[in-house]
């Protein structure tokens, strides 16, 4: 039995070594999650970029204000006509804040439904980009003149897009509850959405309200407007 001791000791030391080594690496791995680390990096990048976008938008706004001042300096004759046309064109393009009669549609995720059926597919209970797109489409059929979603003005080039858990409107994230403001004839617009998607959304138990307003304020489009490839034909 004496001669068993050295070999056995070697095996025991080896086992202890391997056990401790595996234990420490496993511990390190548990605390260091590569995916979450990368996500955190991405989140900070997104936040930084969003700050930058906000800064740039402020700059655009300031420059536009300057431009407005210059353009509206009092002048006579033909120039004045041009100025009024320009002001009108700007309103139509969505570059100025506008006020008027209209409706406010508020739609939220169906959280009660989600709570009641926790095992169900959550996609059935959240508001999707398609819902907003459809609503906006129908508002336009109802001859809406200016539309904004959660304070983001929609213009001719605006997009509404699904990005994972959220919805992007013109590259800005919007989160529920979604508030769609539209200036136009309230009667026409309500009729238009009632004939379209409203019933479907109500059937799916989304909390949705429609309010009429006499004095609706819709902000100006804050982003950039560039026409690099389009020329007058």
């Amino acid at each position: 039995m004496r001669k068993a001791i050295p070999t056995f000791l070697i095996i025991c030391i080896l086992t202890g070594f391997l056990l401790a080594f595996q234990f420490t690496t496993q511990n390190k791995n548990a605390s260091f999650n590569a995916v979450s680390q990368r996500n955190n990096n991405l989140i900070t990048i997104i936040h930084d970029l969003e700050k930058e976008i906000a800064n740039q938008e402020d700059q655009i706004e300031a420059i536009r204000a300057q431009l407005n001042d210059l353009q509206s300096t009092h002048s006579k004759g033909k120039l004045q006509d041009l100025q009024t046309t320009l002001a009108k064109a700007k309103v139509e393009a969505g570059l100025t804040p506008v006020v008027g009669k209209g409706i406010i549609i508020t739609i939220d995720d169906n959280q009660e439904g989600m709570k009641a059926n926790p095992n169900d597919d959550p996609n059935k209970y959240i508001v999707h980009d398609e819902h907003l797109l459809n609503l906006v489409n129908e508002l336009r059929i109802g001859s809406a003149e200016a539309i904004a979603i959660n304070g983001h003005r929609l213009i001719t080039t605006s997009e509404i897009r699904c990005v994972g858990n959220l919805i992007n409107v013109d590259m800005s994230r919007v989160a529920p509850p979604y508030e769609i403001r539209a200036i136009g004839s309230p009667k026409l617009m309500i009729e238009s959405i009632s004939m379209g998607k409203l019933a479907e959304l109500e059937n799916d138990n989304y909390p949705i309200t429609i309010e009429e307003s006499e004095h609706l304020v819709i902000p100006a489009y804050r982003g950039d407007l560039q026409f690099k490839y389009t020329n007058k034909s």
Partner: protein
Amino acid sequence: MWLVLPLLGLIIGAYLGSAVTFQLPAVYLKYMSIAVLASLDSVFGGIKAILEEKFDGTILLTGFFSNALLAALLTYLGDRLGVDLYYAAIFAFGVRLFHNLATIRHYCLLSFRKKRSMRQEYDGMRHGEYDE
């Protein structure tokens, strides 16, 4: 006395293992877990062999390395083939661990009972002497 030995070895090994700062790439973690199982199996096998008084250092060491090699080979092959063949190694080592433990327990219990009955016999004899 010799029961202290594996414990002492384990402690020394654990100390060395936790002192190592070198980190293995995540790909080889599977191989490491197999190695841990193989060495644990060897420890139990060694205890069993000592109890059965059939201990042979060469057999134990070569057994350890050949088992670990085969397990690593299976793991590698499994990775290549897309079949988790290393479960086979885990299963085999696990079964052997339990089996060895059972044998160790049997031996310990048997020797304990033997000792007790011997002592009782001895006590009885002494009592008998006293009574007479």
